[in-house]
């Protein structure tokens, strides 16, 4: 029984190799797909951070305290003025050395290092948090004022009004902007390859060095990015349609 199934599998593999050759990429196909999985994972994690920071940033931009508003404005202005690559390098190399220098100053030398995943996700999330802050700010302003006044007239406080009335409605206005942020963000994750995280770009780099076929592998990687973009586009269209369900079209 055992040998028969073994030969069966062999046979199956032989017939499949011709079809698989194109996807296999000299044995590096699986590596690329693994890298793509990590890219999507990194992107989703960073996006969650970005949305979270965006909501906080928006809350701060409408704060009654001038100091908090100033902090939020500084956050968005500074982040949008610095290239992502510089920030990634600053966080990955700069933050550990800063901590080491400061602790050495207090006479307690330590060795700190960040792993590329944490540094990359945190930096990308932090950068795009600034962009989603602006998206949420615009969405908040798009919610009709009368709705908020009506909620207050019903006796709801600030927090309750936000949770029950503003947040559900502004999400609809924020969707297109958030979709754009996601599209730029997923492409920005390619930069994390610079600090050696084995995501899609890094995998393509490794494969192209080993096979000496850089064009093949970087082109394959670019097609995977393109596929991610196309799928994201479809999801975004579906989500926007769904969010607009209750809207009366005039």
């Amino acid at each position, binding site marked *: 029984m055992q040998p028969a199934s073994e030969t069966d599998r062999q046979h199956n593999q032989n017939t499949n190799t011709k079809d698989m050759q194109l996807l296999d990429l000299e044995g590096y196909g699986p590596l690329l797909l693994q890298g793509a999985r990590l890219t999507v994972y990194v992107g989703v994690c960073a996006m969650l951070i970005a949305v979270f920071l965006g909501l906080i940033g928006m809350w701060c931009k409408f704060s009654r305290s001038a100091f908090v508003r100033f902090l939020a404005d500084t956050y968005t202005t500074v982040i949008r003025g*610095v290239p992502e*690559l510089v920030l990634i*390098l600053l966080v990955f*190399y*700069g933050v550990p050395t800063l901590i080491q220098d400061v602790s050495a100053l207090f006479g307690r030398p330590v060795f700190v290092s960040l792993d590329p995943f944490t540094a990359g996700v945190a930096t990308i999330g932090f950068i795009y948090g600034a962009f989603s802050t602006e998206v949420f700010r615009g969405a908040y302003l798009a919610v009709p004022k009368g709705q908020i006044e009506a909620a207050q007239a019903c006796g709801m406080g600030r927090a309750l009004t936000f949770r029950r009335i503003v947040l559900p409605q502004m999400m609809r206005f924020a969707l297109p902007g958030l979709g754009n942020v996601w599209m730029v963000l997923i492409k*920005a994750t390619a930069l994390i390859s610079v600090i050696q995280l084995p995501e899609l*770009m890094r995998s393509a780099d490794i494969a192209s060095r080993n096979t*000496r076929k850089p064009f093949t592998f970087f082109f394959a990687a670019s097609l995977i*990015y393109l596929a991610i973009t196309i799928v994201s586009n479809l999801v975004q269209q579906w989500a926007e349609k769904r969010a607009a369900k209750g809207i009366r079209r005039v």
Partner: protein
Amino acid sequence: MDIIIASLPRFFSATLVTLQITAIAVFIGFCIAIPLSVIRIAGPKFLSWPVYLFTFYFRGTPLLVQIFLIYYGSGQFMEQLHAVGLWGLFQSPWFCAVLALTLNTAAYSTEIFRGGIQGVPAGEIEAARACGMSGTLLYRRIIIPRAIRIAWPSYTNEVIFLLQASSLVSIITVMDITGVAGEIATRSFAFYEVYLFAAALYILIVYGVLWVFRRIEKRINAFLHLGSA
């Protein structure tokens, strides 16, 4: 701090490299994007379809992939490039960097100007037609100048993005601000001081360029604010 003061001259020339690469890419990209956006809207299908594919590819993939495709990927076609005498060009990181940035910004700008052309009020086009303009003259005199004015704020954003994206050329060893910062940082181990200085430099340049583009916008769109000013 001493390290930064000592390397100020290097940062100055690096700033020039960043500005130079960005300016060349923006200028050529602009010149490519205007005709492409017209083709995308009014061209025959066999022309507008490739333009659409071009913009779709360059907007859908990371710039880093595009730079690597051109710089490292060209090595796979060494013999063919040798045969047409272009190999020397593709060996230079500077050339590959400018080429990648140019194609990238051309793709984004094409879509931006396409939006601008579609935003030109129909009445203005009708008026031009009533004056007897058509075809090239209509585009040259009425549609394109108006489309550029409409698209200018978005185009400003694109230029700022490109300026920041130009930091990626440091990965293929071009000595722009990020490249010089990386080199000084790894030699002196003053990572955060040097990168913070580089970040500050970028902020300065970005808001400087932004100011220039806002001035241009005010000028070319002055007619919109006649009543209010």
